[in-house]
């Protein structure tokens, strides 16, 4: 009788211990299955959301060219089909990687994409679409987080000849894709040369040179410009490389006035109004302060792949630092993407040139929009090849869940 009782007690104890251990072990297996399901769902969701973004123009369809808040989020160019993206809708996305710039003369902050020293895209925060709003418009608020990045596929690298200040100017243009050079690519280019003296009302004048060339088997070509024959001559150079449907942009400037220059702020997208500010109003470099005179023009890539200049009204003016000196204003009179080129002059011997893309693609600026993917446990990614204003881009979406294991497809 006693041995039977001991047998029962030992058996029950061992059984209960075994059940506890196996429950834990099976729980791990079940969690593994749930995790698998979650990740698979997230991957599918990433693909769906990326297509939703890229294959719908949003509501209204032209929201990228207005200052109005959209009622639906989408980036497709309303004038095209397939994966052709609006360069203006992308321009309205709050650039995650840039610190906003405050301009005290308007009392506003501006979303900031600045590439290199003198290439700006500063858009008023009142026009910018922020990440939380995009989440709501996509219907994934508190459910998923994402980061959308758009990067040009083709890199066009422009460098001056290794012999600095060579006479005449020699520019080397290298075009390559993701690790592969664009051999025998068709290159169209525009060189804007600044003449510090000679413009209206003391402003700088400029002349433009257009041309075409082909790259060699290494994807590079060297261009020579007799017109730039002095080291103090300022210029900007923009080149487009074309090959088999791939188009990329590269650019380079030479300036002689480093600290005192002009900064363009896009103040009103609908009207194409751009404010021209003195650099000291944004960042004070110390005395002396000099007035800066400017002369603006606009170039765009025509359907035949050549660059064309579009004249601007009231393109000439001057700005200075501090109160009592108003900013200048130019209006871009087109809804086609292009480049606002502003030549400036600090003194008879110092000046330079700044460029601003009108539409993100004109200078192949990158876009990073959304949250921080590096802080997430598991991120699903997907990519598409797209064209933005005719320029080849790669769209990458990183998506993560905000609801852990409770997310269902």
């Amino acid at each position: 009788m006693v041995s039977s009782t001991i047998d029962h007690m030992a058996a029950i104890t061992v059984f209960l211990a075994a059940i506890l251990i196996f429950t834990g072990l099976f729980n791990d297996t079940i969690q593994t299955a749930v995790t698998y399901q979650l990740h698979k769902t997230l991957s599918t969701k990433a693909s769906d959301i990326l297509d939703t973004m890229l294959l719908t123009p949003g509501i209204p369809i032209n929201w990228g060219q207005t200052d109005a808040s959209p009622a639906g989020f989408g980036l497709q160019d309303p004038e095209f089909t397939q994966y052709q993206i609006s360069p203006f809708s992308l321009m309205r996305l709050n650039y995650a990687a840039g610190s906003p710039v405050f301009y005290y003369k308007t009392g506003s902050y501006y979303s900031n994409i600045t590439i290199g020293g003198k290439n700006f895209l500063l858009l008023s925060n009142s026009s910018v679409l922020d990440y939380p709003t995009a989440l709501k418009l996509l219907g994934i608020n508190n459910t998923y987080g994402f980061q959308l990045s758009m990067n040009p596929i083709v890199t066009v690298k422009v460098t001056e000849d290794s012999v600095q200040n060579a006479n005449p100017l020699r520019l080397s243009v290298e075009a390559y894709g993701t690790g592969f050079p664009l051999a025998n690519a068709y290159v169209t280019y525009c060189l804007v040369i600044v003449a510090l003296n000679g413009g209206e009302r003391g402003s700088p004048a400029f002349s433009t040179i257009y041309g075409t060339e082909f790259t060699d088997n290494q994807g590079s070509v060297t261009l020579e410009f007799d017109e730039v024959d002095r080291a103090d001559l300022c210029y900007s150079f923009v080149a487009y490389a074309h090959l088999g449907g791939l188009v990329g942009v590269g650019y380079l400037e030479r300036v002689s006035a480093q600290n005192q220059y002009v900064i363009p702020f896009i103040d009103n997208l609908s009207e194409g109004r751009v404010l021209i500010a003195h650099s000291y109003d944004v960042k004070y470099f110390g005395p002396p302060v000099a007035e800066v005179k400017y002369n603006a023009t606009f170039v765009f890539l025509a359907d035949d792949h050549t660059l064309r200049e579009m004249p601007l009204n009231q393109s000439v003016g001057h700005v200075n630092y501090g109160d009592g000196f108003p900013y200048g204003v130019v209006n871009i009179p087109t809804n086609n993407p292009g480049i606002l080129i502003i030549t400036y002059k600090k003194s008879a011997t110092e000046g330079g040139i700044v460029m601003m893309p009108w539409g993100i693609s004109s200078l192949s600026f990158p876009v990073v929009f959304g949250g921080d993917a590096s802080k997430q446990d598991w991120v699903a990614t997907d990519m598409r090849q797209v064209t933005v204003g005719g320029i080849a881009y790669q769209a990458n979406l990183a998506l993560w869940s905000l609801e852990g294991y409770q997310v269902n497809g």
Partner: protein
Amino acid sequence: MMRTIEVLVVIIIITGAFIATSYFAVLPWPRQVSPVNLRRLSLTTLELLDSNYDLSKAAFEIDNSTMWDQLEVALSASLPPNLLYNLTVYEVGSGESAGELYRTLASISSAEDLGSTSDASSYLTASSNVTFNVTPEKIGEHAGGGTLYVLNCSDANGWWITGYTAQSLAEDLYNLLSPYFVKTVMVQDTNQLMQLLDGNKISGSSEENVQNAVIINTFGECVPMPQAYYQGNSRANEGYDATAAYPYTRYCYTLGQKIRVHNWTWASIVGYPFYYVSNTAVFQNEQNSYGIYGMRMTSQGGVRAFLQGLDNQTYRYDSSGVTSDVGVVTLTTETLDACNYYGIYPSSYQTSTRALSTSILSAYHLSVGLDVFNQNGNYLPGAVYEHVFSGSSDTTGSILALGLTRTPDIRLTGLSLLAYYQPRLYRSEYTAYGTSRLVVLQLGLVGGS
């Protein structure tokens, strides 16, 4: 003891079950759980390569090694380095015979084996020869009119068309604009012009419609004049005013009246409109004060008289100037947009030395239907003016005046008319046997097998 053994047996069974479950429920590695959507990536890559129709061209020129080299470079440059590819072009068969539906024509590949985790997309390319067609909407086809008259009078001389003849300009304009009109008629001499002014058809075509037509004067600052309007001839009272410093200014008044009556759009391609009249027969011994025979000056009163006729005012000789030299002018946004839409690209900078004053708008009941160039102060370098009587909403005659300096660029005339009437372009595609080829792009991940 028996119970303990039974429990141990149960534990062994459960352990076996756990091992079996764990073996089959292993979490796959990330590439399998969350793969890049290779199918969509390959489709978008194909669309990208064909964004300028380069892929379509290559698919139909498989023997063109240069083109295929470029395609291979573009494909390699557009894909991430960890992706392998195989691109194959297939001929699409008709399916009616017993042969293959798809026949391989060409293929390029970056590796012999793409592994097991590959995916593919197909893309149908179309031949550039036969697949795309643009059909312009005909101006005026739904609202009456639709006839373009191009003055090509053999018995008149032109002025400020330096380097061209009116006839060569007329031919170019015919080629440029005739696709956009229901009927295009060349007015071959001033007799035909007189028939036209009387409201009669001159081609015999049922498609010709005199009312609401467009007339392009290719003679620059000069306008052809039928002989009947010459001094002493049958219609001299409508073409000759002996009291005026420039007697044939009266003919311009008659022209203005005709344009109002027939609701024409008159296009002046360069310079000062109606500054001279020309007929090489009746003016054979007279010249325009610059030594060009067959022509008489009407001077600045010509356009005044024309506008008086257009506005149905009483004719009164008025020689007061109405233009100004405004220098360099620029195309408006509307016109620049039309450049891209219609594929006509004149320079956006032009020089205007004969810009018309805005004062004519109120003086002659005109409104601007289209600004071709940006206004400069109180002067319009180029515009389409519509005549609308007070209290009416109907247009009764229009004039396109391009007050540019010589030599004329007729692309500006064509562009101005197209930007004003805005005929749509209908693009269509055809698919037929032999005009389509299938391109399949298969992508695989490096080490994916």
